[in-house]
């Protein structure tokens, strides 16, 4: 059974999507000759040529806007924004057009755009290289937002995002690009909109996504020694959320801890907590807890572990809700 890094699995997803659908185009800054700063597009231009895999000027709004025009011409653009914070210049195009265009033209043109964004922190990056932009996108009607946590699921989500008729923002956790997972790559299985239960447990549910899933799994292993069994839900799909899995987990464990890197206030954890309250209020035995980044800008590399939810903070939150 082959072992895949997340970067390698994403690369394979692009390779396979280009092979399967002649209308798929891959473009962005340094994705062609260089193969992308995280090597996710490595070798694609050599295989598929400059007509289908190409470099662009440093021009995020132009790239996102061009993707809209390409959809009108019947193409299926897969676009890379080089880093999270560098997706912000494209925000007007994404919010005003990518997200709304299908409604504006009464469904006559699908915005089958995949916007790949290396996101989140944890790699000792420079400033503007550790942002968690998911709330901006998840708050925008018309977009779908996904964040894989492992190599095999990254392949699946990217293939599904490219095949999806709606625009999908794929937030790739930089800190997990070189993490490894063994198995067969497959695009079937859980869909966009489905969460995955990665570990069963009865006392508390952890809800996480992206790079935080690995930390939550570590926390669950530690807590098991303390006779606290934790269920781990990998959201995968941040918009839409999997209400059914959230509801079932909240009902069955009665306690929920949401973990994300993004600042706490108005973060995705607030939405998860609200949904759980709406869906399973009578079953809750403790308030939903949030373990998140602080309400600060993402800090310099030497402070980032203080900012990111640590395994210790996650364990403490679980102990508190269990003891509530």
């Amino acid at each position, binding site marked *: 059974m082959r072992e895949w890094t997340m970067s390698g699995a994403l690369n394979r997803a692009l390779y396979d999507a280009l092979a399967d659908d002649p209308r798929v185009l891959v473009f962005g800054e340094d994705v062609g000759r260089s193969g992308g700063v995280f090597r996710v597009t490595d070798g694609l231009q050599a295989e598929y040529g400059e*007509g289908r895999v190409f470099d662009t000027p440093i021009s995020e709004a*132009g790239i996102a806007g061009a993707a809209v*025009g390409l959809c009108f011409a019947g193409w299926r653009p897969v676009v890379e924004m080089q880093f999270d914070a560098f997706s912000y210049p494209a925000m007007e*195009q994404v919010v005003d057009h990518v997200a709304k265009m299908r409604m504006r033209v009464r469904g006559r043109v699908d915005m089958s755009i995949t916007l790949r964004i290396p996101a989140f922190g944890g790699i000792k990056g420079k400033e503007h290289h550790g942002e968690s932009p998911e709330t901006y996108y998840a708050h925008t009607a018309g977009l779908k937002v996904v964040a894989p946590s492992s190599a095999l699921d990254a392949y699946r989500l990217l293939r599904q995002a490219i095949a999806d008729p709606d625009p999908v923002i794929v937030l790739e956790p930089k800190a997990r690009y070189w993490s490894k997972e063994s198995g067969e790559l497959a695009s079937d299985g859980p869909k966009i909109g489905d969460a995955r239960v990665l570990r069963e447990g009865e006392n508390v549910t952890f809800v996480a996504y992206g790079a935080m899933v690995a930390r939550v799994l570590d926390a669950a292993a530690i807590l098991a020694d303390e006779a606290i069994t934790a269920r781990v839900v990998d959201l995968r799909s941040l918009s839409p959320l999997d209400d059914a899995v959230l509801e079932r987990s909240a009902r069955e464990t009665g306690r929920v801890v949401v973990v994300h890197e993004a600042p706490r206030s108005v973060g995705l954890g607030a939405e998860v907590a609200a949904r759980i309250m709406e869906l399973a209020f009578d079953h809750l035995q403790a308030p939903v807890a949030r373990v998140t980044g602080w309400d600060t800008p993402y800090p310099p590399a030497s402070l980032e572990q203080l900012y990111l939810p640590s395994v210790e903070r996650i364990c403490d939150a679980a102990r508190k809700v269990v003891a509530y």
Partner: protein
Amino acid sequence: MSDEPEHGAGTEPVRILAPDGSPVGDADVGLSPEELRDLLRWMVLARRLDRECIALQRQGELTVYPGFEGQEAAQVGSAFALGQLDFVWPTFRELAVALVRGVDAVQYLQYHRGTWHGGPYDPRATRFGPICIPIATQLPHAAGYALGQRLDGTDAVTIAYFGDGSTSEGDFHEAANLAGVWRLPMVLFCQNNGWAISLPSSEQTAGEIWRRAEGYGFPGVRVDGNDVLAVHRATQRALERARRGDGPTLIEAMTYRIGAHSTADDPSRYRDDAEVERARAADPIARFRSWLLGAGHADDGFVTACEEQAEAFALEVRAGVIATPAPPAEWMFDWVYADPPSSFERQRDEALR
């Protein structure tokens, strides 16, 4: 006829007809007398409909409406040069272009009636993109569309309209740069109408817009935007150039916004009536009509017929606009997603219950 676009000397735009209609250049732009009469017919029709729209807004039948009086030559002259497969990316002020492209006026005006956003008409069938309000954001769409057309091996050209104010936006720069780097089959058509709401073009940019093309590596040309023949010829040449695979052209059509920015705007707060009166003297329709009659391509009877036709058209559109109902409530949800999430469908059911 040279293949290259003409460059005005300094700030002087390329012109075929003087403001009084007398020819100052070669008036043979390759159009038949019938096509020349069509140019007048469209301009008269467009102006009459524009005025009707302002009346409809005053009567509460349209929401805020952005008029284009004074810009008929720039719009009709350029749109008339387009081939059937060429694609237009408009702003919110290109109703005359839409008419020439064959967009149904009542459908178009659903946008201003407030019954739909974007493109109530079919943008792919009409080859006229959705109405675009966020300034200059349609320009990257045009660049992407032009790229897509070239990848498909067609010889169709993409034309993007924008105003002088748009050129201060980053999206103008990004699209022009992509057009240059990728030598896209694209025409960047700027209607410099002197004003971006209250800001005169002199405060919008310190340079001349057509000259910016050089920095992007393609030709620019400044034409008299109130001279329908000059606009038509410049557009034709830019289209031919793009079709040949020689890349984009930036056209700056010098015109003037006679009316307010929109029906919600009061230009007396920021500009002199005297300036507007001077602009009226350079009226594009009077200029072309005078030449057309003088050249013997039309007679007074044709002019009267144009006006009668425009009157009837405006009344027909008025009736159609007034008869347009509010859309059904489910339309708020119907096209947000091609593959709607179940949580979204539950919201829809809650709203429509």
